[in-house]
């Protein structure tokens, strides 16, 4: 018999196919919409309940924020958390995103879909990239619903809405850009703990909280060196952002995405998939 000739699709054809599948799954899973809802409800709840009267004592709690937009980001990049107000802003989206990506990738393994996928021409690198892009898109969408929830509730609180609009826009866009880096971290963690769904979720939550950077800042001070890390750059995207902030976030996000994608591909290529 003559030698058989085969033709496999190009990288872009493969990635396009895989992204099509992952986006289809994303839009057809209730989980995505639930997380979008959570991202909208959390800031609305924080702002909406702020300054409410205690029905037993009649006392009014001191408001967490003096400006509506503090629920999006702090005035200045504060890596050290002194109170909950310093922490409760749009970066929480990255925690929700981590849990969502864990469930999304966990489902690939639980259903045996990866087995179906990796017996085709699909490459490990395509899989990681596709999950990262879909995860980043989900978190960027959560940033939008978070903003809508915050603005909606903010209108009822009566606190100041004064803001430098360009800084606010840059901060939001920067955080959306950071979604890519965070998604690559979560994809990487899920690749490492692919056989242990619970550990994947817990690890994503742990890293998503930025506790390591908060701890480092508590020890070493509020240093801008921390911007080289995902949480550091996410905090750096604050209400006093400028074009430098945007660039820092872009570089940090892309570099970490490259690192995690290469590392994840190597791990997945050297280990048993299923």
């Amino acid at each position: 018999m003559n030698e058989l000739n085969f033709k496999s699709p190009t990288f872009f054809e493969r990635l396009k196919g895989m992204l099509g599948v992952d986006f289809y799954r994303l839009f057809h899973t209730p989980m995505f919409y639930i997380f979008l809802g959570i991202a909208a409800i959390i800031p609305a709840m924080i702002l909406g309940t702020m300054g409410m009267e205690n029905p037993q004592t009649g006392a009014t709690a001191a408001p967490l924020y003096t400006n509506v937009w503090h629920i999006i980001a702090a005035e200045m990049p504060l890596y050290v958390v002194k109170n909950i107000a310093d922490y409760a802003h749009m970066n929480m989206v990255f925690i929700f995103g981590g849990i969502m990506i864990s469930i999304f990738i966990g489902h690939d393994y639980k259903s045996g879909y990866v087995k179906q996928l990796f017996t085709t021409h699909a490459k490990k690198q395509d899989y990681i990239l596709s999950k990262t892009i879909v995860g980043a898109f989900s978190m960027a969408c959560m940033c939008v619903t978070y903003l809508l929830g915050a603005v909606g509730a903010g209108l009822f609180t009566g606190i100041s809405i004064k803001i430098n609009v360009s800084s606010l826009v840059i901060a939001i866009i920067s955080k959306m850009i950071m979604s890519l880096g965070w998604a690559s971290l979560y994809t990487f963690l899920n690749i490492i703990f692919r056989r242990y769904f619970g550990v994947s979720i817990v690890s994503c939550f742990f890293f998503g909280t930025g506790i390591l950077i908060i701890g480092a800042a508590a020890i070493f001070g509020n240093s801008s060196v921390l911007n080289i890390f995902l949480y550091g750059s996410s905090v750096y995207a604050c209400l006093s952002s400028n074009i430098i902030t945007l660039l820092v976030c872009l570089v940090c996000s892309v570099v970490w995405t490259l690192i995690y994608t290469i590392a994840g591909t190597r791990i997945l290529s050297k280990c048993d998939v299923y």
Partner: protein
Amino acid sequence: MNAIEIKGLTKNFKEKQALCGLDMTVPVGAIYGFIGENGSGKSTTEKIICGLIQKSSGSVKLFGKEHTDPDIRARLGVLIEAPGCFSNMSVWNNMMLQAANLDIHNAEQEVVKVLKLVRMEGAAGNKYKNCSLGMKQRIGIAMALLGNPTLLVLDEPINGLDADGMRIMREVLINIAKSGTTVVISSHILGELEKIATHYGIIRNGKMIKEMTAAELNADCRTYVALQTKDLSRTKAILSCKYSRVEEDEAGYIRVFDTVTPEEIVSYLYENGIVIKEIGTAKIGLEEYYIDLMEGK
């Protein structure tokens, strides 16, 4: 050229050695029945062929190329254990997702074609989780057939199928093998496998202990004389005095595996006052051949 050529394949899971220098050759266009006990290494071998797990050492070539070659991978159809489908999605959507993974351009027609092949077109709208075990197996086969694979690797595909499902599967596999597709199929239902396989590989403790064609198997299968009398236990006792291997089967027949003709047995039993109700010669099937091989007979 062979569809699969494996040499000295080993796989270690921590301290357990699942495959110990396995050799395997599957010619192009064959239906290769891959047989072995549970834990003998069948699934591990198939998973290595499909690229799901890494080999520890040895070489695995598919159509003369490394098994990791993406060009080759694009031509594989696989069903390992159960199909990898999302339970909350419909059969149709699951099929379409796999078609997208395979970059099939006329996906809808292809999905309809393979669903029709396995007689599952009526269940396309059903949610996967609502399908029976047999239906899921057929969906898995349909998924493996997407994109006209050149090599089909099926792990226990007929488990859970009813008689009709098995007949359909038989027809499908024979037809696709006729079109030049190579099929590797592992199963414990040896009677079914015997009806379709053109080649066999018998694995034990991670080593291939025998590879042969269906014709070689047929030649290897021993002939025996089967007989039935009114008093089976007495007949067996009398026959055992003269012949070395006399067995009673589940259907109530006595089998004599020694080189002997029915006439000789009739004459011997007549001398001992036993009347024979029925007597004839037959050959052992794959199942018995396999059991004999495992027991070292």
